[in-house]
């Protein structure tokens, strides 16, 4: 049947991408407009094609060719030769990677800071949104919210400068702690490896809480006011209303965002660690991306660095799939 349609339109070789709807339509009523053939549609949509073509080419060059570059991980890649004119070594670099103690340290640091950031980032954003939502002075609320976005918009270079300045020997935190008599000597925050994860987490919370609260606040704005009226009639306090009405109402949003962030647990980046880290805390600041950067580019071990990147991508895709399945199971809808 599809064949006859093609012949009717006099383009026997044209791929017929709209074949099914046409067939169905034909059973009920005679074909009206469909339904220009593929090439005719292409011709009519020249402008649209020209508008998207440069960006499709861009996507292929800047996003897909690098994925093709993954073959480097299975070679001893030397930049002076072509991509396929290389010595093939199969899984050697992956074996090297899994035998490298440094790699496990990088993995531990990445997941450690990733989990801390996820837990405290989510909790702080929800608490901030809940409390802001209860604030009565509307102008003050608006002002607080605007100010809370500021740290999000400044770079991590500035963020790191702020953290280092505040935590320095004569910085405000040490002055404050000494002023109220908790400590006698200034603490060298930035020179203590055991504090590094905590400092990164606190810096992250300081920078992103206001921004992350946006979506929770939007969800809270959609809660039916009648629920609160009913709760008030029953004599529920404000805190109990927050707990029994507001929180359950935004539960789906919380779960979707949590799932998305779990998928990104390994993609925590390296900016904070690179800018806040120093030689003294290096063992706690080394994350997977920094490891790939140091070994891959710094030591010209391109193939090894690519293998690190592939490992990261695979873990990330596995996490996303698991989370998506999990979301389906608990009935909050798939994330994508």
């Amino acid at each position, binding site marked *: 049947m599809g064949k006859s349609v093609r012949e009717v339109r006099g383009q026997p070789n044209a791929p017929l991408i709209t074949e099914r709807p046409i067939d169905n339509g034909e059973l009920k009523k005679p074909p009206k407009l469909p339904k220009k053939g*593929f090439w005719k549609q*292409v011709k009519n*949509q020249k*402008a*649209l*094609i*020209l*508008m*998207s073509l*440069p*960006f499709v080419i*861009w*996507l292929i060059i*800047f*996003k897909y*060719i*690098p994925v*093709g*570059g993954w073959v*480097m991980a299975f070679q001893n890649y030397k930049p002076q030769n072509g991509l396929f004119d290389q010595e093939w070594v199969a899984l050697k670099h992956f074996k090297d990677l899994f035998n490298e103690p440094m790699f496990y340290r990088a993995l531990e640091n990445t997941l450690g800071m990733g989990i801390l950031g996820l837990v405290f980032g989510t909790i702080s954003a929800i608490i901030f949104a809940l*409390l802001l939502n209860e*604030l*009565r002075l*509307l102008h003050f609320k608006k*002002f*607080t919210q605007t*100010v*809370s976005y*500021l740290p999000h*918009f*400044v*770079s*991590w*270079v500035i963020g790191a*400068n*702020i953290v*280092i300045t*505040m935590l320095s020997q*004569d910085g*405000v935190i040490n002055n404050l702690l000494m002023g109220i008599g908790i400590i006698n000597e200034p603490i060298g925050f930035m020179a203590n490896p055991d504090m590094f994860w905590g400092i990164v987490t606190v810096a992250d919370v*300081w920078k992103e809480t206001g921004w992350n609260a*946006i*979506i929770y606040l*939007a969800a809270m704005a959609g809660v039916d006011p009648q629920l609160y009226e009913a709760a*008030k009639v029953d004599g529920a306090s404000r*805190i109990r209303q927050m707990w029994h009405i507001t929180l359950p109402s935004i539960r789906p949003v919380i779960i979707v965002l949590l799932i998305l962030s779990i998928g990104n647990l390994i993609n925590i980046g390296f900016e904070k660690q690179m*800018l*806040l880290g120093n030689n003294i805390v290096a063992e706690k600041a080394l994350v997977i*991306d920094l490891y790939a950067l140091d070994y*891959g*580019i710094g030591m010209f071990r*391109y193939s090894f*660095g*690519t293998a*690190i*990147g592939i490992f990261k*991508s695979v873990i990330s*895709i596995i996490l*996303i799939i698991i989370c998506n399945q999990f979301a389906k199971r608990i009935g909050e809808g798939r994330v*994508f």
Partner: protein
Amino acid sequence: MHNKKKKWTLFDIVLVLFMVFVLVITLYPFLNILAISLNNAVDTAKGGIHIWPREFTFANYTEIFGSNDRLLQAFLMSLLRTVVGTITGLIASTMLAYTLSRKDFVFNKVVGILLVMTMFISGGLIPDYMLIRHLGLINNFWVYILPMLLSAFNVIIIRSFMDNIPKALEESAKIDGANDFTIFTRIIVPLCLPVIATIALFLAVGQWNSWFDTYLYARANENLTTLQYELMKILDNSNISAGDITSGNAKVIADQTNPQSIKMAITIIATLPILLVYPFLQKYFVTGLTLGAVKS
């Protein structure tokens, strides 16, 4: 608000106090850095500067804009890449978003999948670096613009906005004989100004704040240095050991100032443009983000 009529309780007072606390921890660092940037560098070293300078001076700023060519150049380069990057990024993402918002576009599905896939897979640091090398973009201005041209997230936000524009507008224009490109520039773009403002803010902030591309791809070319990169360099030097702050910045040292105080002045200069822009676009990016999140 569901509790407007009720009396003020202890709970309300605690809430206000908590928010004041949030405001203080958010704003104090910026005010502190502003005060240090306006204070005599030698005096700053004695400590004790909070939110008001003790020995007021503009020396740190005149150092950046007057005596130090490299910092002035870095400022201008940051400005240039922000302007060029925002304009090209806006053109690219709105155009692509428009073709994706057209359900009748023959390649709608293919292009859409190509775009969304990039949110889940990426080549990674090393393949990206090799690509930039092979494209000859190392130490080239366009390394600031081309790799950051498009982001799937931005395109999806714009497309969600376009989906809410009544199709009848496009159809009537089509009957009048307008082609797709004219419809895009004359009808769609003017209606999308709120979302365009949001994306312009995201792109401009991204460009202005970028430092890693300079570090990785352009540090050998002094002409391409940016404000964020210069700040990062001072930070890097001072963070490792307080005694060795002069390396690479020997020119900066003068009687009145030192890298530590210049660092604070750069921080303020790098923060100011952001502070002047984002509060006015707040309404747009909040709705833009919410819309994008709901759709995806």
